[in-house]
Structure formats: C-alpha cells, structure tokens
C-alpha cells in the first residue's frame, strides 16, 4: 500500500474518531458515534497490517496477541459492574500509558524499523517526541495505577502527604527536563531508562496526596495525559490518526478536569497540590457540639412522600456504594403510580468520576429525560414537596452559600433546603468528604433516615 494512500486512510480514521465524540452530544446519536469509533479503529489497524511489507511468521503472533488482549478486554467489559466504572477507566488509562512507554522503548532500541535513524543516531526531532511520549506515558501509567488502587479500596483514599512534597515534585520535574536535554545530545540508553524511572516516580508522587472525593478530577486529568502520550508517539510514528486522537483525548480530559474543578469551586492546582481532606479534618473535630437532629424511620418517610405532589431525588456516591440504584428506581415507580412527579438532580461532582450517577441511574432503567443537571433543576427545589437525598452530602450543604469561612464556600450546591421537607438517607451524622458538618442535618424540615441506603429505600417502598 502506498504511503500516501495509507496516510489518507489514517486521516479518515481520525475523522471517524471525531465523529465518535460528536455523537455523544445526545443519547440518541451516541450509539452511532460509538460505531464510527469502531470503524475508525478497524480502518487504522487494517491499514497498518496492509502496510507491512514482509509477512513473516511474526505476523501470526501479532494476531494471536491481538486476540488474547481483545479477549481479556471483552471479558472485562461484559463482567464489570457499572458501579466499578471509575476503577475500570483508571485501569484502562494505565494500559494506554504503559503501551505508549513500550512503543517508545521499542522505537528507541530499534529505530530503523520506524524509519527514525540508527541506534545512537536517532533524528533529533524523533528523539524529543519519543522522550515526551515515554515520559508522559510513564506518568500516566503509575498515576493511574495509584488512582485505581485508591478507587478499588486496596489503598486508603486518604491523602498521603509529607514535608517537602511539592519541592520534591518540582525538583523531579526539572530533572525530567534536564534528562531529556542530555538524552537528546548524548543518545545514551542509560539516560533513556533513567528518564522512564523518574517519570514513573513522578506519576506516583502526584497522585498519592489526592483524596478520594477528588478522584473525578484525577481521572479526568489522567485521561488527558493518556491523550498527550498518544499524541507524542503519534509524532514519532508520523501517524495522523494517532496525532488527531491524542489531541482529541488530551483536550477532552482537560475540559472534564476543568468542569470537575468548577463543580468543587477549586482551582486545578489546589486539587493537584492535594491534602484537602487531611487539612480540614481538624476543623471538623473541634466544633463537634451536639445539636438536635430529627430522625425517622421508613414509615415516616413513606408518609411524607405519599402526601407529596413532587419529589426530587439527589443521589450521590453513597448510593453507588450501597448499590441502591435499583431499589431507588422501584421506589420511584411506586411513587409514580400514585401520581407523584419525580425527577433526579445530579451535581457535577456526584460520584467518583464525571457522569457516574447518570450511568448508574441509566443502568437501573431510569429514563435520561427525568435526570437533570444542577443548573437545570436548582430552581425547582423551592416548588418541590420532598427532596430525597441518598448518599450525597457536601453537594447539598447550604454552608457553601452562607459561610465565607467554610472550605467549600462558593462551591455550587443543590438548593435542597428550599424544599418543604428534606429526607436524608445516611448511615450516620459523620461529616462528608470535605470534613465539615452539613447544616442541613439540623434544619427544622429535615428528617434523617439513619440506615443503609439500599435497605432504607426498600423499606420505604414497602410502606408506600
């Protein structure tokens, strides 16, 4: 296949990837979009196969390894529960990062196969691109592994901080820069391996100080990194499909990080520098005075909801943990049978990754046109009879609007307190991730339901 023809086909597959993302602008077009993505991938892989000049026995192994990886991927995709989506995405990011590292290593060892020169005499531009791809890929890999371990609960979600952390990170970043420059002038393999090692280390160090609820930002950020790593390798391979995709994914992840940071009213650097949860815990323990709280049982909750004409559900990460989405949908079905209007309100940072709650509700067969974003629904709380908060906490805290001293001041929150009555399903009165007390617990019109989210929801359904 001529180089020009394959370049055009790679361009087409890049365009198909753009259409794949474009399809996600609405659920109706999204499935077609995914199909475009698959077609783009098939084109890219086929073109690469056809450009191979000598079909050696190695080609058979390529197909075998492709089938092994594909089989594993398909198996995981079918078996993974929707609640584990953040872990899955973090795991996948680490694979992209590691694949970028491996391709860069191979190109460094054997540049002739990639038309980049000879070992020890690689074209300068290619070497820079390769080093960037490898360094970003390695950072993505180790960072994603830590994110995965934290999400999976293997590693504690609490931020790990130590003295001089930021200084160390800054020094390592400078070291990476120096190593890259020396690598370009000496072409020494040892420098290349050191560069990789330092990049692995920095990915690890960047993610350990970031706490559990900041994971939406971290996952989006690593998404972005994996894109830039792919783009770096794309430049090395002079491959348009890879360059386009890398740029798309890189900007996609960056936008998602921005949206998540805005949802928490924190600057990107603030999140990256980490340690949020650890700092605030002391503040939480010191004002632990006893305030009166009204608590009720499933019967009370059912009574309140039965007499309501409109109910707004506010789901959060706790719902995912308790796997309560199906029980919730059953409760809502019963409510609807009684002619009660029900809608769902989703905060941008609810859950552990962007859009996490929407997927869980979709899994439980909740139609997506009953699910609303913060700006769409926030004015409706004043007219609603009951707000049912299940597994959410900080995102409903009115303190964010009233108390400039609060660490979450300025964060956009759902105006739950404007409802006639608020039902709050929670296991205990413990503060949420931000480590601050939620004023909503002590409001006159709030009824706390202390129980496991799933069990409570099922009990309410029985009592309706």
């Amino acid at each position: 296949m001529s180089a020009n023809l394959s370049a055009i086909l790679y361009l087409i597959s890049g365009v198909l990837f753009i259409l794949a993302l474009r399809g996600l602008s609405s659920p109706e077009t999204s499935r077609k979009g995914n199909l475009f993505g698959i077609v783009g991938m098939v084109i890219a892989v086929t073109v690469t196969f056809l450009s191979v000049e000598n079909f050696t026995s190695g080609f058979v192994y390529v197909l075998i390894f492709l089938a092994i990886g594909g089989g594993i991927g398909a198996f995981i995709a079918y078996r993974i529960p929707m609640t584990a989506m953040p872990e899955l995405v973090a795991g996948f990011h680490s694979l992209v990062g590691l694949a970028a590292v491996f391709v860069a290593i191979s190109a460094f060892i054997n540049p002739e196969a990639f038309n980049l020169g000879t070992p020890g005499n690689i074209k300068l531009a290619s070497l820079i691109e390769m080093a960037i791809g490898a360094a970003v890929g390695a950072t993505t890999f180790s960072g994603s592994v830590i994110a995965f371990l934290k999400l999976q609960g293997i590693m504690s979600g609490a931020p790990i901080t130590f003295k001089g952390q930021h200084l160390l990170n800054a020094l390592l970043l400078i070291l990476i820069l120096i190593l890259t420059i020396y690598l370009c002038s000496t072409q020494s393999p040892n420098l290349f391996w050191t560069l990789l090692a330092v990049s692995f280390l920095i990915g690890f160090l960047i993610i350990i100080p970031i706490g559990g609820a900041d994971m939406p930002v971290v996952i989006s950020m690593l998404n972005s990194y994996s894109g830039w790593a792919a783009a770096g390798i794309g430049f090395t391979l002079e491959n348009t499909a890879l360059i386009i995709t890398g740029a798309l994914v890189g900007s996609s992840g960056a936008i998602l990080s921005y949206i998540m940071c805005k949802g928490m009213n924190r600057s990107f650097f603030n999140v990256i520098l980490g340690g949020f949860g650890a700092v605030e815990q002391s503040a939480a323990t010191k004002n632990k005075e006893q305030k009166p709280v009204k608590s009720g049982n499933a019967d009370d909750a059912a009574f309140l909801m039965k007499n309501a004409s409109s109910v707004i559900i506010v789901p959060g990460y706790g719902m995912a943990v308790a796997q309560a989405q199906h029980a919730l949908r059953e409760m809502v079905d019963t409510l609807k049978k009684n002619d009660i209007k029900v809608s769902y309100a989703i905060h941008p940072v609810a859950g552990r990754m962007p859009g996490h709650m929407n997927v869980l509700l979709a899994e439980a067969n909740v139609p997506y046109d009953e699910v609303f974003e913060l700006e769409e629904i926030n004015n409706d709380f004043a007219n609603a009879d009951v707000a049912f908060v299940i597994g959410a906490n900080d995102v409903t805290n009115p303190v964010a609007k009233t108390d400039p001293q609060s660490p979450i001041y300025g964060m956009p929150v759902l105006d739950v307190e404007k409802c006639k009555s608020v039902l709050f399903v929670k296991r205990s009165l413990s503060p949420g991730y931000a480590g601050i007390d939620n004023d909503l617990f002590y409001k006159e019109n709030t009824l706390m339901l202390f129980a496991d989210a799933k069990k409570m929801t099922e009990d309410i359904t029985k009592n309706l």
Partner: protein
Amino acid sequence: MEIDPFIFRLSIFILSIFVGYYVVWSVTPSLHTPLMSVTNAISSVIIVGAIIAALSSNDGLVFSSSSIYGFLAIILAAVNIFGGFLVTHRMLAMYKKKKKGK
C-alpha cells in the same frame, strides 16, 4: 525552501485540539462517563505503533528485544480497544427515553 513535514503534523495537532475542544464541550454531561471510556478506546489506536514495533525484528527472530515490547503493547492496547468500545456500548444501550403513554 520546502516546509518540514513536521510542520504539517503540528498543524494537524493544533487544529485537532481545537476540534476536540468544541466537540467535547457539546457532549451532554450525562454522557461524560461514556465519553471517558470511548476516549480510552480511541487513544488505543496507539496499537498501530505496537504492531510496527512487534514486526520490527530484522534478523529472522520473531521475538527480539525490540519486538517483545511491541507484542506486550499489542496486548495492552487490544484490552483497551475491545474493553473500551464494548463497555461504552453497554453503557449507551442503557440510556433510554421515557416510554410514551406511561
């Protein structure tokens, strides 16, 4: 003077960032999770590099020091491609509109 082909690639790269910027802002927030899984899948187009790397040995050996990294990268990228597109498909299949007349 001829323009270095690198400049063309850089142009594609910069323009793609802008395309990505506008396309991603138009993605509805409820589909942000599928967005992440599908970007995962498409960024695994890095498999084209892995394939070249896997077939890079020139001394008749199938597994040389450079090709072995290629084969490993193929496995990783393939997990991502199949896993990413399939899990996206699974998620998107769940998004349903309200049934009429209910």
